[in-house]
């Protein structure tokens, strides 16, 4: 797959965030300041616009550039974390103009690493990671077993959804939600919902 697939992937993410704008606003209004629907739809729109008009065929540079565009557009917690994910994926895939299924999976691993490097959170901290981590594991396992990418994407999306749904058992220790202490536990984490949406968009991009 070449750069046009990455553009398609980013378009799918941008679309799903636009569709779920109000859903994310609602989620973030309960625990945070309610801006997540705006920042994710605006941020991924900015990332896509940068990707769509990108001239070079270097997939890594494309990802990096779209991440930087996102960081400029939405400097909120999740905005910057998602930008860091894209930029790190870009660094890892730098120089590639064609990528294999395994390298597509690598995009998501690198994306997650970028978020971890920036955010210093751990799985279980009730964040984005609790949605993305099971998805990345499922995707890697599927690709390693030689399954077609569509199957891996489907499993990854399902795993992300399960991970998100389980965040209402976790205690928040980062960001605004953490200021609520134990009262945060029974709530769903908005950032993990974004992970679920990203993986659904990935599934959509393969069909």
């Amino acid at each position, binding site marked *: 797959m070449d750069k046009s697939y990455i553009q398609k992937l980013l378009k799918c993410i941008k679309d799903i965030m636009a569709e779920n704008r109000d859903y994310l606003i609602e989620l973030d209004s309960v625990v945070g*300041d309610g*801006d997540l629907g705006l920042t994710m739809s605006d941020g991924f729109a900015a990332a896509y616009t940068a990707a769509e008009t990108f001239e070079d065929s270097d997939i890594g540079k494309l990802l990096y550039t779209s991440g*930087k565009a996102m*960081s*400029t*557009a939405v*400097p*909120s*917690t999740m*905005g*910057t*974390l998602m*930008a*860091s994910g894209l930029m790190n994926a870009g660094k890892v895939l730098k120089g590639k103009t064609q990528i294999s299924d395994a390298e597509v999976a690598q995009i998501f691993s690198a994306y997650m690493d970028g978020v971890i490097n*920036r*955010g210093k959170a751990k799985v279980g901290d009730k964040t984005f990671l609790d949605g993305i981590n099971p998805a990345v594991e499922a995707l890697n396992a599927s690709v390693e077993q030689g399954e077609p990418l569509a199957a891996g994407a489907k499993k990854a999306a399902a795993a992300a959804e399960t991970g998100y749904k389980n965040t209402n058992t976790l205690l928040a220790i*980062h*960001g*605004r939600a953490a*200021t*609520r202490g134990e009262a945060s536990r029974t709530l769903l984490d908005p950032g993990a919902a974004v992970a679920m949406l990203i993986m659904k968009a990935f599934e959509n991009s393969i069909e």
Partner: protein
Amino acid sequence: MKKIINNPENYVKEMLEGIYIAHPDLVTYTADDVHCLIAAKKVEGKVGIATGGGSGHLPLFLGYVGEGMLDACSVGDVFQSPSAEQMHAVTKAIDSGAGVLYIYGNYNGDIFNFDMAAEMADFEDDIKVLSVVAGDDVASAGPSAPGEKSTRRGVAGIFFVYKCAGSAAANMMSLDEVKRVAEKASANVRTMGVALTPCIVPRVGKPGFSIADNEMEIGMGIHGETGIRHGKLESADQITDEMLEKIISDVPYTAGDEVDVLINGLGATTLDEQYIVTRRVSKNLADKGIKVHHFYVGEYATSLEMAGMSISMLKLDDELKALMEKPANTPFFKQI
């Protein structure tokens, strides 16, 4: 929402335009972006100090850029971080070879963006950037283990970190030394606040939380983060004593220690009330044998039009004391 504003979307932009109109001799901006505020005068060879953060806290953060304090501030939307790109832009503008120190408050969005900006400055421009994250709000979390990063939020006490670091840089100390001073100040400052009324983010148009009539929220954060207790509004003396208790036991202090104290209004609370609190702080500390070197009283870090106040205390040694005494000339803080 009773505010004298135009379209809430333009709130920060128009505020910044007003800032440049009123203080042309002290501040200007770079990168064609009013959010990228820098000092009007660049001192060659000096370590640059940059800060940044959301709007809604004037004079924080931008008000301390000027002579003898900070060199730059990237300005975010109300209660929102500025972008890494904006921080990167001011970093390039203020570096004169001696490197740049970031000093900012302990908030997720700010940390992520300042870290990203530091990487950009390192990668793209070979500028050495170090960071000090201020977390002085004793109400927001317990003390952190030695060597561990504070998990406390940054509030008004950052003023002391700015002042000490700004004086150190003005003394032409090296980047590592300015960082050491900023860390020392940061390690020795504690703040406690109390809120009486909520505030309204202009784009939201209604309060994000409420405080019952006759109630107060002790330890509430400057964005309305939950405090450590709410209860009936008490007398100024009682509130002051409770806040000092928390501050003093956290350090801890012993008789003979010397401090600088900041009595800070959050927005709607009168100066009269701040001086009534000043009076009690003075009595309380005198009883404990703690000597006040200097009182700073006024609005140093606000939460829009919130009613309430905070007390910050900086434990002094000879070095910090001398640095606190140096003159400064910024839009909001002038010391002669």
